[in-house]
């Protein structure tokens, strides 16, 4: 009797243990999966695509420390050290805790030429190779942290007021943001100087967002995945020889639908209702 009781207890404990392990595994997975879903975040230069970055980042903070303690991070007037660009996500930031990010309106990325934050990354979450130019040198202009977007309705340049703060602040002056001249029909004698962002040049450093004079910036950096649309592979630029390459092996396929001999008005009489 005692023997079978023992066995029953053992079985019950085993089943309960497995059940509880499965339960905690599910809760744990659910929680982990939900905290990694935070698309509105700007990562350091050279960061892998967001999903891969979250996997790879070991949350050591070496990038943030390198950013904070770089030689150039000194206030020119006071000679004191400034706050670094990169922050480490804390509890309550609604980001995967311990991962580096930046908020341009607090401190934008100053695009240091030697890129101190990237070579120190031990895990490979910040990919140095993605920042090498043709000469195999580190080139911060290769980085793509995000894309600046102009909200026309709140941008005072679109109202006709002269402002080129973002254009002047851009480290890739007259390349990432250009000014487009347009006639101001309202006054008839002035020009609009409209800031236009070019997404193949813009690195997403956020200097424009910080420089913007409006109460809430009319130009702001969004992560590439959020900021960019996608036309889809089936759209081919017929006038672009390079784009044409994509479809050079395509076979032509003609679909024909048999045309009905009936008059279109006949169906009311012939069909059954």
């Amino acid at each position, binding site marked *: 009797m005692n023997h079978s009781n023992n066995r029953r207890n053992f079985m019950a*404990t085993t089943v*309960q*243990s497995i059940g*509880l*392990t499965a339960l*905690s*595994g599910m809760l*744990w*997975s659910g*929680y*982990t*999966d939900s*905290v*990694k879903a935070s698309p509105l975040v700007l990562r350091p230069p050279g960061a892998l695509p967001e*999903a*891969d970055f*979250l*996997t*790879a980042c*070991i*949350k*050591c*903070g*070496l990038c*943030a*420390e390198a950013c*904070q*303690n770089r030689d150039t991070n000194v206030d020119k007037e006071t000679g004191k050290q400034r706050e670094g660009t990169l*922050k*480490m996500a*804390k*509890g*309550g*930031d609604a980001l*995967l*805790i*311990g991962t580096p990010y930046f908020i341009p309106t607090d401190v934008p990325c100053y695009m240091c030429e030697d890129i101190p934050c990237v070579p120190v*990354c*031990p*895990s*490979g979450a910040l990919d140095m190779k993605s920042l090498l130019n043709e000469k195999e040198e580190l080139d911060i202009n290769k980085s793509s942290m995000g894309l600046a977007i102009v909200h026309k309705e709140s941008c005072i340049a679109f109202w006709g007021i002269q402002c080129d703060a973002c254009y002047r602040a851009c480290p890739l002056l007259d390349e990432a943001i250009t000014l487009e001249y347009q006639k101001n029909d309202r006054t008839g004698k002035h020009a609009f100087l409209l800031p236009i962002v070019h997404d193949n040049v813009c690195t997403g450093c956020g200097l424009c967002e910080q420089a913007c004079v409006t109460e809430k910036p009319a130009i702001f950096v969004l992560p590439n995945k959020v900021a960019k649309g996608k036309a889809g592979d089936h759209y081919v630029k017929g006038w672009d020889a390079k784009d044409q390459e994509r479809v050079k092996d395509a076979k032509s396929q003609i679909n024909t639908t048999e045309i009905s001999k009936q008059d279109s008005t006949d169906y009311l009489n012939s069909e059954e209702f």
Partner: protein
Amino acid sequence: MKNIKYLLLRRTTQIGILFFYFAANAFGWHVLEGTFGTSFLFQTIPLADPYTTLQVLSTGFVLGADVLLGAAIITLFYFVVGGRAFCSWVCPINMVTDLANWTRRKLHLDKEEVNYRFLKRSARYWIMVLGILVSAVVGVASFEVFSPITIMQRGIVFGFGMGGAVVVAIFLFDLFGVKNGWCGHLCPLGATYSIIGSKSLIRVKHNHENCTNCMDCKVVCPENQVLHMINKESISVTNGECTNCGRCIDVCNDDALAFNIRKL
């Protein structure tokens, strides 16, 4: 007066290490940079947490050589030197749970160790395995999402934010919930180090001849199942769950416990 030699040594080590990590960010010192996830000693020697490294590797991501080398160095160090010495000599959460434990004794909440059916000291090993599995499934190092250890360390280096709540929660759990609840039952990092250091050289040795059976050592020991030989046999504490904290040596008035090198 009770001896607090090892306690002082441990607190000095813990706070000293944390200070160097803090100074790396605050003053740009190059002694210990980074955090437990990966850090560099004097800008050259990489150090990495083996359990975090395992979590990331389980997702299928091939980590950089520095992290792998760092994890190997740390594993080798604790394999040789002293098992869970990380837990009692380095980990900042140890100060929180020690404080909870001390308060527990002062408030006399400590009378008996409750035997919970599903919260055994072996739970941490299951959590350790589960953490690796969850990391593999979700694709993110799963323990790092809420690990109070790195949250507290990053809190000290970069600022706490709401992360401080996790640390307070651990304190309250250990004080009013389960005795030695976090470090002794749940922490998968401690479980990892228990396994890594189960054969390590530095061990507490009991001298049965001197023991007066006062049981002071068992009262202060956070893992007192490892002290099963007290007043029974003159052998070393060989259980990997011993954190080598040396509190038992401190409180022993009979010279019956001492650190010793294990004979191979």
